[in-house]
């Protein structure tokens, strides 16, 4: 089966109310796909990262290095509400579904940019967002239904045609700091959704809900309870508020039937005195069986993290050679400054190398565990460490191009002075035990191309400040990304040479995506409080 067949199947399934397909049809289609990244081939963009492999790679080829200089905006959508728009829209069956904060969804006509419907969940000012802005980063789509997480901790299913609510289910309690900003992931009839609250002392989990009913299918706790494997890494009752939020979207391998999901920092963030030990499975990648919700393996990047270097970055599934052997990899440019390649079947550590300035580890040992440099913990008087609390990269998506075999990483080059303070748990308040003072003026950013097989930098496109913009690569040989200063730009995927830019007028804190409308390739990105859509001018 080709990718486009898969995609058409998926597309039909989305309309199955009229077409009569059942959700299991999608399961079959997806399970038999050899490369889920091909789902976007018919010009749709069906999930947050573009594909289950999370390549954020568009197979569309109309926009190239030769013509991108002519790219121009065709419409702009300004959603209700205020604040930065941090979403990645999806495009399914000729409609764009986009979101804005705190919890708004809109269905947009691809040609006019006008809303077909808009849905908002009332979010009171008292709804907590401890440690992150009041944003929403996107929807999942399956079987004619959209799925959106809400800032107040619910998962809502919306009819894709009308925006009508089909069901609402509570995922976490907001008064204790639980919230949802991440896009859910639709997998085999289930909606997988993560939770935010790692600065509020939550105990993290990842949930799977039945897409039809909203009923909980399984819950994976990222912090084990006493007696469970990993619990020995938590003294006393420290596990109860152990953190490990799952606040970004993960990836999925339909052949292995494994979900790959990054987990957040342990709590309290910067004062680890009460939680001596590795604090499993925080700051880790866990591979979870889609049917059972049980972890098949885990890999912890930062044991006993005290710098808020969570591992929620997007895990990217890549098939490539490492040290001469062909491997099914999951790779991650981690917030802690190291790039990792793991065997995604077993979790075996294969490769790790620093890709940005870091001053806390001499390197990684043979199993990928960091070799710590002494006295780099936060302290009462302050400790200067690179990277900053926001990390060498953060939630902004990387992109992998199968054409170049490069991973394009949004990089933040910045140090911080880390402070440690006393901490007490009080429901619905910060449970962090410290702070940072950032070295803003000397900081900078980059879109950095890493050789996926070695982690070595191939090229570096420098930005004036640390970036929050995601990256998309395309089969047209381009890399799109943005800057906090509002630039949206295209680079040559092989060299990093800039080829085009547009000033959106607002910080870009979103991920670019691409789709076909009327047979033409379009590119979309949110900048400031607006969503911009670009295309080449019509031939005359």
């Amino acid at each position, binding site marked *: 089966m080709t990718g486009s067949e898969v995609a058409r199947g998926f597309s039909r399934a989305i309309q199955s109310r009229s077409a009569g397909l059942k959700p299991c049809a999608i399961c079959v289609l997806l399970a038999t796909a050899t490369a889920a990244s091909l789902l976007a081939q018919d010009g749709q963009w069906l999930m947050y990262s573009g594909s289950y492999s999370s390549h954020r790679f568009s197979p569309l080829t109309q926009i190239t290095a030769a013509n991108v200089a002519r790219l121009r905006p065709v419409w702009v959508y300004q959603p209700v509400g205020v604040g930065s728009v941090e979403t990645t829209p999806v495009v399914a069956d000729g409609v764009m579904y986009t979101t804005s904060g705190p919890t708004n969804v809109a269905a947009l006509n691809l040609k006019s940019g006008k809303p077909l419907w808009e849905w908002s969940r009332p979010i009171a000012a008292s709804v907590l967002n401890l*440690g992150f802005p009041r944003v929403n980063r996107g929807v999942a789509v399956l079987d004619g239904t959209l799925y959106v997480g809400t800032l107040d901790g619910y998962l809502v299913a919306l009819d894709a045609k009308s925006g009508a609510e089909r069901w609402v289910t509570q995922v976490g309690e907001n008064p204790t700091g639980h919230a949802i900003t991440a896009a859910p992931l639709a997998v085999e009839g289930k909606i997988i959704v993560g939770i935010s609250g790692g*600065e509020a002392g939550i105990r993290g989990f990842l949930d799977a809900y039945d897409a039809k009913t909203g009923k909980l299918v399984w819950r994976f706790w990222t912090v084990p309870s006493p007696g469970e494997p990993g619990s020995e890494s938590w003294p006393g009752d420290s596990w109860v508020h152990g953190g490990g939020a799952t606040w970004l979207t993960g990836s999925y391998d339909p052949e292995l039937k494994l979900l790959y999901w990054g987990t957040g920092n342990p709590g309290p963030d910067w004062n680890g005195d009460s939680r001596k030990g590795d604090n499993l499975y925080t700051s880790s990648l866990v591979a979870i069986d889609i049917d059972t919700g049980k972890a098949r393996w885990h890999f912890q990047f930062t044991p006993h993290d005290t710098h808020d270097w969570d591992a929620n970055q997007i895990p990217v599934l890549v098939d490539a050679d490492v040290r001469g052997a062909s491997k099914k990899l999951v790779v991650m440019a981690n917030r802690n400054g190291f790039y990792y390649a793991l065997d995604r079947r077993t979790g075996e550590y294969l490769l790790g190398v620093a890709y940005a300035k870091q001053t806390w580890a001499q390197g990684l040992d043979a199993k990928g565990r960091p070799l710590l440099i002494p006295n780099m913990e936060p302290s009462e008087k302050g400790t200067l460490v690179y990277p900053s609390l926001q990390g060498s990269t953060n939630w902004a998506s990387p992109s992998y191009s199968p054409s170049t075999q490069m991973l394009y990483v949004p990089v933040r080059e910045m140090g911080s002075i880390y402070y440690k303070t*006393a901490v007490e748990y009080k429901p619905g308040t*910060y449970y962090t035990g410290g*702070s940072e003072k950032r070295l803003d003026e000397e900081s900078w950013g980059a879109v950095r191309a890493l050789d996926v097989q070695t982690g070595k930098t191939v090229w570096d496109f420098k930005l004036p400040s640390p970036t929050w913009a995601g990256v998309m690569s395309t089969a047209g040989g381009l890399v799109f990304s943005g800057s906090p200063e509002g630039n949206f730009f295209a680079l040559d995927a092989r060299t990093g040479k800039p080829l085009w830019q547009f000033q959106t007028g607002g910080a870009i804190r979103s991920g670019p995506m691409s789709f076909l409308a009327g047979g033409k390739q379009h590119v979309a990105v949110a900048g400031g409080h607006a969503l911009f859509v670009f295309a080449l001018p019509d031939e005359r």
Partner: protein
Amino acid sequence: MTRHLGASCFAALLCVPAAVSSAQPRSLATATSSDIGAGQRIFDAQCAWCHGAAGTGGTGPDLHRTTLRHAANDRELTTIVRNGIPGTEMPSFAIALTETMAWQTAAYVRSLGRARGRSLPGSVEHGAALYDANGCGGCHILRGRGNALGPELTTVGALRGAPYLRDALIKPEAAHPPGYLVVKATTTAGNVVRGIRVNEDVFYVHVRDARGTVHTLEKSDLSALDRELDATLMPSYSRLAATDLDDLVAYLASLRGGR
């Protein structure tokens, strides 16, 4: 500019409009010496960076005052310690400090206000004359008059502490404020433009030179763009007599926006 944004956004991923408990905080007057001691330790670690050791002022104001501009009462003071002052360089500490810690820190700040502040040596009147005689208005705006190459000084005495003002006069390169980063742009043709970075994005940089002219430079036309992190366009006034420096500092410290 990035620097301004950075200064007003604190910690993590966020500019959080942090909530403060609706519970009525205890009067700061009820703080024990133990509370105040705890507040001092927090202050030394978290606040002295800007407000100076013992709160004598730095890039942030001197806190040895019985009345604080933004904190008319105990509740407001505790709220400011925890949530900062939006639109100013005072950041939020909501992530770092619990309500109790913020209250203890506020109690320490209140104790500073009760302590007698050091009165500044120097003559405000003579400082004003020195300000004019040295042509400070050539680069600074004061009550609507002057030029805008450097920061406006109309309220500088309320924003900055005297030690910082003195440093800014003697070794200004160590004390340039947010938003006044010096950059040196070299064009591919070999021309050099040096000045204050007004604005920068990925493809353009705007530089205000010492004459006040703003240059719009396209980065593709530059062979180098250097950030001079320790540089300033402000000349040093270390040549002034010690008593004149005292007078000038006293004058600047008196500029609190009053009419």
